[in-house]
């Protein structure tokens, strides 16, 4: 079975993240770029399938700047067989639609049985890419799965809805997105790290994929303005002396909150 795992490099959510106020682009120098946590979990889902079905072939796919190569190499060390890195200056500031078109074009170059993604990135928070790929590739999409199994060419999973869960299934080929209910990734071992040095990372440009950054028939979303919000300031902080509860209720009452 061939699996494609989509991963994304994002600004570390554990530090202050910054937008450049002139370009509106993520300021990559301001915070450390890390593999989005949901991407690690997605890779782990594929690695678990590889554990039980050794003939599985995992390709990791990412679109982004040069720095993503270290992350792709780590994925190879964990057990992925190959990696594809889509990199092009024209992709700077790409919106969701362009991103989906690029990733779909990269995925069309091979016959994958399963395309695995996270349900939502921590920087864009759109949660849309999996179904955009489903539309572009004419594949069924089982999204937001908190459990996933593959048996005899059929994907089964538990889909987390708002206020409900659904048992869903679909024959492969298919797209699946997972939630953070699934386990975190394993660490690469020494053997894996050595093996990864010999594994290929294919680098593709927009021209290689035959995708236009600004086709005349496709509307793009553009950022008009960007402003840094003033940081919140601390208000009244008191140490409890037995009267703090009363003071809090008075504060709430004064602000019409009770």
């Amino acid at each position: 079975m061939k699996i494609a795992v989509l991963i994304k490099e994002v600004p570390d959510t554990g530090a202050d993240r910054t937008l450049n106020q002139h370009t509106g682009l993520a300021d990559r120098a301001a915070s450390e770029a890390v593999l989005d946590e949901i991407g690690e979990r997605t890779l782990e889902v594929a690695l678990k399938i590889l554990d039980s079905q050794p003939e599985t072939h995992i390709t990791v796919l990412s679109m982004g700047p040069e720095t993503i190569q270290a992350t792709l190499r780590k994925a190879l060390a964990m057990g992925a067989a190959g990696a594809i890195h889509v990199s092009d200056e024209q992709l700077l500031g790409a919106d969701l639609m362009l991103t989906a078109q690029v990733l779909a074009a990269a995925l069309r170059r091979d016959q994958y049985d399963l395309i695995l993604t996270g349900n939502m990135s921590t920087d864009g928070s759109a949660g849309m890419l999996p179904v955009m790929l489903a539309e572009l590739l004419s594949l069924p999409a089982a999204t937001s799965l908190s459990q996933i199994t593959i048996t005899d060419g059929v994907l089964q999973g538990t889909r987390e809805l708002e206020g409900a869960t659904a048992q869903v299934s679909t024959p492969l080929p298919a797209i699946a997105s997972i939630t953070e209910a699934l386990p975190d990734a394993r660490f690469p071992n020494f053997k894996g790290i050595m093996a990864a040095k010999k594994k290929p990372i294919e680098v593709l440009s927009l021209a290689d994929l035959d995708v236009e950054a600004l086709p005349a028939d496709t509307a793009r979303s553009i950022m008009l303005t960007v402003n840094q919000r003033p940081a919140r300031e601390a208000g009244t902080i008191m140490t409890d002396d037995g009267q703090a509860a009363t003071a809090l209720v008075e504060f709430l009452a004064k602000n019409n909150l009770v």
Partner: protein
Amino acid sequence: MTTFAPDSILVFLETTLGGEPAKSTAELLGAAAGIGTPVAVIAAEAEHLEALAAHAAQAGAHSVLSAQVDSVVLTAPLADVLQQAYELVQPQAVLLAHSLTSREVAARFAVRHKLALSVDALGVQRDEQGVIASHSIYGGAFATTSAPTFGAPVITVRVGSIEERAQAQELALRALDVAAGDSAEITVQDVSSVQADSARPELRTATKVVSGGRGLGSAEQFELVYQLADALEAGVGASRAAVDAGFIEHAAQVGQTGVAVSPQLYVALGISGAIQHKAGMQTAKTIVAINKDSDAPIFEIADFGIVGDVFKIVPRVISALEARKAQ
């Protein structure tokens, strides 16, 4: 043949599994009324369509387009309905909730029509050239606005972010006959509702939220969070640490990965305020924090903070609130 106003804003209204209008209905129509003439599109099981259409008109839809679907879970057939409504209405913008279902409908529809997507908007406005959306980026650290290069934008709106409401309208209903599309879809075998406490406000749309963190210590002691929430008529949330420790279900997680809320009041109990948690709540109007550690980062953004023991302070707060109510 009905004609639609040139400034029509098409609003996709989501339906719950039980056939009720989603909570986002009134705010989406309110947002649409601020920038044009709201036209609602509803896709639901046949038996619910009449009541849903009446509710949409009551909430401000000038006209309502409705179509029958077999299930409200699968998003490709819902996008088929939106597509047909869009072709009929030719609106200046399409609004949907940024919920699990509606954002997938938005994404599928935008791909099919090659329209620009603006996601997780906190508001919509107009400028000389058309409809623009405002956003909060990186958990509220930055405010941006976005617009399409051309065409109608497809905008998903963060649930609970719009305060404006539209005036009720007379019902003008038109039924759409949408043939089953040819999109590949999954099979849904079984849907089970997670037991929700209907008496308590839902986290995403609650105007007040009380959240608990690791400081609550155990699932049993987390009960204190529910007690304060009920005294304040608030929804219940939690930090990731509390969810990971099993004090409460994952759906209650507030933060970077989880629910982002912007309530009038956010009360953080025993939450240290990791940057990932702040990303989900720092746009709240008023923040109250109670924590025993005076160095907890949550105090840096709290409007009112108490350094002390939640197990001593919160019961006193509840008694004081009850005393106030009894007056």
